[in-house]
C-alpha cells in the first residue's frame, strides 16, 4: 500500500521537477544572449567612459587577455585586461582589479592606464560598502573616483597615494576611511604593476574565457 503511494507521489514530484526544469532551461536559452549583451554593454560603457573612443581603432572589448596575480590584482581568479590600440600602436590598458580589503568585502574596479603611465580613470564596478558612507567610491554616488583621472604613480611607495589623513593626496570620507584607503591602494598597486608589465601585456595573446564584468562566483558571501 504505502509503496504504491510512494511510487505515485514520487512520479508526480518528478514530473513537476522535469516540467519546471524544462521551462527554466527554455527561458535561460532565450535570455542568455541578452544577458551577455547587457553585461558587455555595461562594461563597454565603463570602458568608453575611461578611454576616449577616438583614441583607439581596435575592438577594445574583444582585445582581451587574462592574468592571475593575487598581489597586484587582488584576486585568485583571472582578471581580464582590455587593450586599446590605434593601428596596432598601444594606446591604453583597462585592467580589472580587486581591492580585497574593503569595509564589507571585495571592491571590484576597472582601472584604465595610458601607455605613458598616466591613470586615465578608474571606476568601481561592484561593491558592498556602507550606503551613505563608503559607497561614495561609486561614481553614481559621488565624484570622488574622478580624482584619479590624469594622476601618475611614481612607485609602490609613492606617498601621494594615500588618503589625506595618512598624508596623501586623496580625500577620505567623513566616517569612512577604510573604503577609500582600500580603493587607493588597489589602484596604486594595479598601476605600478601594469606599467612594469606593459609590453608583456600588450603582447599577450587574446584570450578571455570568462569575459564578463561581474563573475557571479565573486559575489558569494
Amino acid at each position: 500500500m504505502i509503496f504504491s503511494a510512494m511510487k505515485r507521489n514520487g512520479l508526480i514530484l518528478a514530473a513537476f521537477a522535469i516540467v519546471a526544469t524544462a521551462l527554466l532551461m527554455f527561458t535561460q536559452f532565450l535570455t542568455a544572449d541578452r544577458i551577455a549583451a547587457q553585461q558587455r554593454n555595461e562594461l563597454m560603457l565603463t570602458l568608453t567612459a575611461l578611454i576616449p573612443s577616438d583614441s583607439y581603432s581596435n575592438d577594445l572589448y574583444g582585445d582581451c587577455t587574462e592574468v592571475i596575480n593575487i598581489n597586484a590584482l587582488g584576486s585568485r581568479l583571472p582578471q581580464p585586461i582590455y587593450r586599446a590600440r590605434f593601428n596596432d600602436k598601444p594606446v591604453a590598458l583597462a585592467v580589472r582589479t580587486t581591492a580585497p580589503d574593503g569595509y564589507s568585502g571585495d571592491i571590484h574596479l576597472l582601472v584604465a592606464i595610458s601607455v605613458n603611465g598616466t591613470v586615465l580613470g578608474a571606476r568601481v564596478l561592484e561593491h558592498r560598502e556602507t550606503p551613505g558612507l563608503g559607497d561614495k567610491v561609486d561614481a553614481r554616488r559621488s565624484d570622488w573616483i574622478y580624482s584619479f583621472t590624469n594622476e601618475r604613480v611614481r612607485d609602490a611607495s609613492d606617498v601621494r597615494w594615500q588618503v589625506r589623513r595618512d598624508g596623501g593626496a586623496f580625500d577620505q570620507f567623513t566616517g569612512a576611511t577604510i573604503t577609500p584607503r582600500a580603493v587607493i591602494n588597489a589602484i596604486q598597486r594595479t598601476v605600478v604593476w601594469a606599467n612594469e608589465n606593459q609590453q608583456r601585456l600588450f603582447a599577450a595573446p587574446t584570450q578571455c574565457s570568462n569575459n564578463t564584468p561581474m563573475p557571479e562566483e565573486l559575489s558569494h558571501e
Partner: protein
Amino acid sequence: MSDMNTKNEFKALARDGLWENNPALVQLLGLCPLLAVTGTVTNALGLGLATLLVLMGSNITVSLVRNWVPNEIRIPVFVIVIATFVTFVELMMHAFTYGLFTALGIFIPLIVTNCAIIGRAEAYASKNPWHKAGFDGLVMGSGFALVLLLLGAIREVIGQGTLFDGAELLLGDWAAGLRIELIQFDYPLLLAVLPPGAFIGMGVIIAIKNIIDRYQKEKDAKSPVEKAQRVRVTSQ
C-alpha cells in the same frame, strides 16, 4: 446567487490583501526582503513588482494543478512552482533591467523565502479556482508592494532627501527626470538607510495602521446598525 456573491468575494479578497490581512503589516511575512531593499523607492518598486509577479504566477499555477497534487507532496510541489517563477523573474530582470538587477542583487533569489508566497499557496490558492487565486495573488502582492513603497519613500526622504533616485535603472532613461530632490543634507541621516531604520520605519507604519483600525472600530461601535460585523481574518 452567483454574480453578486462573486463580486462580494472579490471585494473581500481585495480588502484582505490590501488592509485587513496585509502580508507585510498584519501577517508580518516576507520581512527579510522587505527590510533589506527598502532603502529607496526604486528598489522597493522593483522588488515589489517582482514579488507581485511571482505571487500571481505561483497562485494561478498552484490553483490549476491543485487537483493533481496529492496532499502529502503538496509542499514540495509548491516550492518547485515558486522557485521556478522566481528564477524566471530573475532571468528576465537580468536580461531586461540590468541596472536594477545589480542594485537588488541577492534579494531576488530571496523572494523564494518570502513566506507570504508559500503561505498564500497553502492557505488560499490550493483550495480555490484559478481566477480567484490569481486575484488573491494580485491584491496580496499589491498590499506587500505598497508597504515596500511606503517604507522605501520614508527611508529615502529621511536618509537621502530624494525620491525616485535611480528610477531610470528600473523604468528606462526617461525616468531619470522623476528624481525629486526634496532636502539637501550635508550629512544624511544614515540611520534611515541602515537596517535599524527599516525596523523603526516598519514599526511606525504598523503602529499607524493599528491607530486607524482602532479609530475605525470605535466609529463602528458607535453606530452598530450601519454595517454588519466583519470577521477579522488574521492567523497570527
